[in-house]
């Protein structure tokens, strides 16, 4: 018994030393982050969109003290459910308000400058009208980015989502060069952090916290769809232009609660996939911008300017 007692005391001493060390370490780390925050806080506030993350996204997971209220979603390399996620974007409904980008930025705490879903002003030819074109990651079924990744950092899950393991990525940026949709972003510097972001532990399904020197992109909010919720962009679209659903179930739903058959919507709506001819087999379908009810990017000159 005395022996066990000494052992436990030793263990206790060890533990307390560890705890003290960890606390010191944590304080150091936190103060460093706090400094980062100090420097960038005003900047961050200026850059963050006016979108306020609602209880469904951030508040549900993060308490007031910045601690997690729910465990971090695991980082499975295989899909948690037998699903095939698919997205349909009705260009006739998109009025270019940019709420999808804002919702996505808030949900994923996307570093400033990156737009995981980017709304382009498009004009296909001189005669055609201009239109808005939201571009998420296409989650291609024949993904050029996955093919070229040298370290298996980006991969295709069975449920159709192309994920990136930021613990694996070496930052060679080959996937960015290979992506025909310019859907990938790189953290060129240490991204500005918020405390809520830093409080999370890393999960591939969240891509939070963001790190320097790795590639990021839209990931179809796997953490949300796993729990039966629309991805942030679809939920944040005031026009109900973004439908997301399960191709196996053959249903898609938008933020208005409209639920239709995926196959009918695409079949009858003249659905197409962007750059189909490249053979990337995207999982994002577009409905053409016909008979839209609100203004489109008007002048061609504006677009020519943007094209540079």
């Amino acid at each position, binding site marked *: 018994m005395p022996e066990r007692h000494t052992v436990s005391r030793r263990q206790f001493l060890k533990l307390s030393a560890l705890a003290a060390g960890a606390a010191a370490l944590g304080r150091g780390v936190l103060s460093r982050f706090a400094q980062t925050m100090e420097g960038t806080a005003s900047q961050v*506030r*200026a*850059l*963050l*969109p*006016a*979108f306020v993350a609602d209880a469904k996204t951030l508040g549900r997971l993060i308490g007031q003290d910045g601690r997690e209220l729910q465990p971090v979603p695991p980082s499975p390399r295989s*899909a948690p*459910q*037998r*699903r*095939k996620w698919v997205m349909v974007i009705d260009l006739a409904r998109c*009025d270019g*308000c*940019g*709420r999808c980008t*804002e919702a996505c930025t808030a949900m994923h705490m996307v570093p400033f400058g990156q737009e995981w879903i980017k709304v382009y002003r498009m004009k296909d030819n001189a005669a055609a009208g201009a239109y808005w074109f939201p571009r998420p990651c296409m989650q291609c*079924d*024949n*993904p*050029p980015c*996955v*093919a070229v990744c040298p370290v298996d950092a980006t*991969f*295709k899950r*069975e*449920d*159709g989502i192309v994920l990136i393991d930021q613990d694996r990525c070496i930052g060679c940026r080959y996937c960015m060069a290979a992506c025909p949709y310019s859907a990938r972003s790189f953290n060129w510097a240490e991204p500005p952090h918020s405390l809520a972001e830093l409080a999370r532990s890393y999960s591939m399904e969240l891509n939070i916290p963001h790190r320097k020197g790795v590639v990021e992109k839209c990931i179809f909010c796997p953490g949300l*769809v796993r729990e*039966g*919720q*629309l991805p942030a962009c679809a939920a944040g679209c*005031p026009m109900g232009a973004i439908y*997301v*659903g*399960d191709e*196996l*179930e*053959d*249903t*898609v*739903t938008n933020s208005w*609660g*409209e*639920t*239709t*058959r995926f196959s009918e919507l695409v079949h009858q709506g003249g659905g197409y996939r962007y750059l189909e001819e490249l*053979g990337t*087999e995207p999982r994002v379908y577009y409905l053409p911008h016909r008979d839209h*009810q*609100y*203004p489109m990017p008007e002048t061609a000159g504006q677009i020519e300017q943007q094209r540079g």
Partner: protein
Amino acid sequence: MSRLLMFLLLVGLMATTTLASASSGQDQPDFQGPPPDPASLYAENCASCHGERGEGRVGPAFVLLDDHSDDEIYHTIAEGRPERGMPAWEARLTPEEISALVGYLRTLAAQAQPPAEEEPAPAHAAGADLRLVLTLQEDQVVAHASLRDEQGQPMAGEKVAFALRTTLGGKLNLGTFVTDEEGVATLRYPAGEVPSLTLEASYPPEAGDPIRAVASIDLPAGQEIPPVATGLFSPNPPPIAILLLGLVVGGVWITYVWVAFQLLRILRVR
């Protein structure tokens, strides 16, 4: 008229986006509270009486909206209809917000289903009992919705609506089915490849707040997810390619070893 409406809607949306981008800089003293996003305005202020989609609850549905001009609607919102219990909103909403709401109401009216006729829900619907049972028969999920009145007697010849509850929280109408003499309405639904299926039966279909019965069934794994369509080398090359590549590269390195062996022989010559 519709142009004006569109314009108003546009003003509302533009204001929303401008505000969203401008609010990063400095606070806008002119606007207090949220930007005039008509959908959220509606949800906050109107939906409790007029229904989430304008189907009508305490307040009327918007089906007759087309008979009124935008100005009339604007004034109705602004000044209210005290005799019917509708409050005046001009104290709480800005003119822009009310204008945006007018446009939004029009879109709601356009989407609204033809109203349920004044015919009241059948008297016996109140105490009716609806049960839904899902069974898997071969490739089909068979949904039996059995309807009984308060005495426990099967209700024959009644319409029961079925809907699919999708994985992302949507609801897809699958149609209405009539109960047989045992009070059972039957739907056959192809199981497909989904891992589970949730169906909903509701009775009576036309009522605003029908009786619902929800049931889920887990489906056997069945066939695996169809494999991702791949290119020749994506995501993984065929083993034969790896083997060939390994042979070629290995051959080169074996030659290097052989050269090293030659060097050893040079070293060993006495």
